[in-house]
């Protein structure tokens, strides 16, 4: 097992192989029923990502089996938010994805996590809208998660939550437009945030601004493990910036998942 740079602890992530991945509904601007993913190609892309994460990045991957009728279950980042032995379970905005909740809950329980449900009526889409960055938990809201989930997370993890309003439907989750890079730095696409959130981000972090064309390629939807950053291909500017800062970008083709509005980060949930 390769040791990664964040301490001596192996990074563990949860993934879901695309056994029943498809496009059955439209719940974000990327999804179009007439532009369905090629499932074979999707499986290849997923396997490549799995390989990069386990070999190049040295992560340990735990798998959850995809349930038929939950085509988006591959996007495990939305299952919840995990820290230590605690898993905060998602409560999806769209009923189509709410079907995934009991399966994720069961997996967390079976794997030794104490599972907490969000307050009644409070939407929360897991790591999709909640990313630890240094001393803070950065949390997106308005498109999918409700701001009431921020108070809940702050209480559950005794941490400072910075609430960031998302303003563009194309970047409907925080992890589609913001990428924490270590404790003090983030890459982000400013146009996805309101002016207050942009101020908050710039106040608390050194920033790399992602350009529109790369933001549209989901450049920020990357998995950071130590100094390895696994991001969708077609984002040369961000890759160059990362290299300058000493990171090792590894790009992967994510075309079939981008059709559903997801990429490498959406396909992984951090477990530690």
């Amino acid at each position, binding site marked *: 097992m390769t040791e990664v740079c964040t301490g001596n602890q192996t990074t563990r992530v949860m993934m879901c192989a695309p056994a029943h991945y498809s496009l059955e509904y439209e719940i974000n601007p990327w999804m179009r029923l007439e532009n369905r993913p090629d499932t074979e190609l999707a499986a290849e892309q997923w396997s490549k990502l799995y390989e990069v994460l386990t070999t190049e990045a040295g992560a340990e991957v735990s798998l959850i089996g995809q349930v038929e009728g939950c085509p988006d279950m591959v996007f495990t980042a939305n299952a919840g938010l995990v820290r230590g032995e605690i898993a905060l379970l998602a409560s999806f905005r769209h009923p189509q994805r709410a079907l995934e909740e009991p399966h994720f809950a069961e997996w967390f329980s079976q794997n030794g996590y104490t599972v907490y449900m969000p307050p009644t009526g409070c939407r929360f889409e897991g790591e999709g809208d909640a990313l630890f960055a240094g001393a803070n938990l950065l949390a997106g809201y308005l498109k999918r998660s409700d701001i009431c989930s921020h108070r809940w997370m*702050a209480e559950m993890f005794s941490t*400072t939550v910075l609430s960031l309003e998302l303003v563009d439907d194309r970047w409907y989750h925080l992890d589609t437009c913001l990428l924490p890079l270590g404790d003090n730095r983030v890459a982000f696409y400013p146009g996805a945030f309101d002016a207050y959130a942009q101020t908050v981000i710039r106040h608390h972090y050194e920033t790399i601004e992602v350009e529109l064309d790369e933001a549209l390629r989901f450049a920020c939807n990357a998995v950071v493990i130590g100094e390895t950053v696994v991001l969708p291909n077609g984002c040369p500017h961000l890759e160059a910036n990362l290299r300058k800062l000493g990171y090792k970008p590894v790009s992967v083709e994510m075309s079939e998942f981008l059709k559903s509005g997801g990429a490498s980060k959406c396909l992984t949930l951090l477990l530690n």
Partner: protein
Amino acid sequence: MPSEVVRLEGHIIDSLTLSKVMDIILREGGEYHIQRFAMGATRSDPSHADIEVSAPDAATLDRILHMTQQHGVQRSTGEVNLVAAPKDGVLPEGFYSTTNLPTRIRLDSTWTPVDPIEMDCAIVVKSEGIVECLPMHRVVKGDRVVVGDQGVHVTPVERRDPDDAFGFMGSEVSTERPKALVVAAIVQAMLDARGQGGRILFVGGPAILHTGAGRFLEAIIKAGWIDVLFAGNALATHDIERALFGTSLGVEIATGNSMAHGHENHLRAINRIRGCGSIRAAVENGTLTSGIMHACITTGTDFVLAGSIRDDGPLPDVITDTIKAQDAMRSQVKGVAVALMVATTLHSVATGNLLPASVRTLCVDSDADSVIKLMDRGTHQAFGIVTDCEFFLKELAGRLPGVEV
């Protein structure tokens, strides 16, 4: 203007959520007032803000609240908790203790004002939703009393309008305030009260007589400027002593000389009024022909004389049961817009306890302690002026229209 108190909590400073919410309120045509703000004690602790949002109309308020809710603003749906009083004169444990600030309670989904409001009382919901602010002794067994502060909304005193006659005065006590300006402001406040149908209350102590200022107060009352006078046995006694014998505590007002056996004069004055049966009877039978109390009777100015343990006599009009005296004063403060408290600590504090914070209150005393005590007991709206009461009343009499000294 419709308003609602909402709560915002979380890391609302670091996230700029509080700024955003305030900006939205203003942008959408509303106004906000942060009633309470508690900063998180540590970095990870959330902060809390209770914000009163107001808007020109209910539709705008609804729109603002709807817009701000998505940024975490929580609307209170909490109604007041009511618990029955266990005995006559006994409140349930945890009863809500009132302030003298404008107060509303949430009852059957609507905000109902508690009016008039008085500090250190309980809020009682009588049958048919009638809301009363009652002192402990007036509560009867079974009265439904507000417990805890859920569903209770208190509006802080508004920032003073700089054009207000009181506007230039701070609420702190000062010996260095330009006194003529203060008196001019009081005159303006009294004129305003008159114009708006508000009543004027005068609370006085016996030093008014000892300093020879009785004639100024008498003239002010004669000119109809005072609606109700609160005092004790002493003010009335020394006023009547002056009217009957020309002395105050045996000292001739005119010359300042002590009169032989003059120290008995106040007892003889009390005795004579007791002989008549009441101050009114003494005026009507011609025994009492001048003075402050005489002016009250002849002009129909109400008065409440509240007794104390050190009283001589007392005069027959003095109410010696303090609870009955409080209730008599309570019934007289309704509609009072201006309260002048001159040269008395005891009666000033007692009156301050009964007044809503909206009453313009001036406290005049040669001793700063009197003024400070009044504010320390919760009458924060009071303005203090440290000066001799004779100077004050002479100035006031000289400036009020229609006063002839």
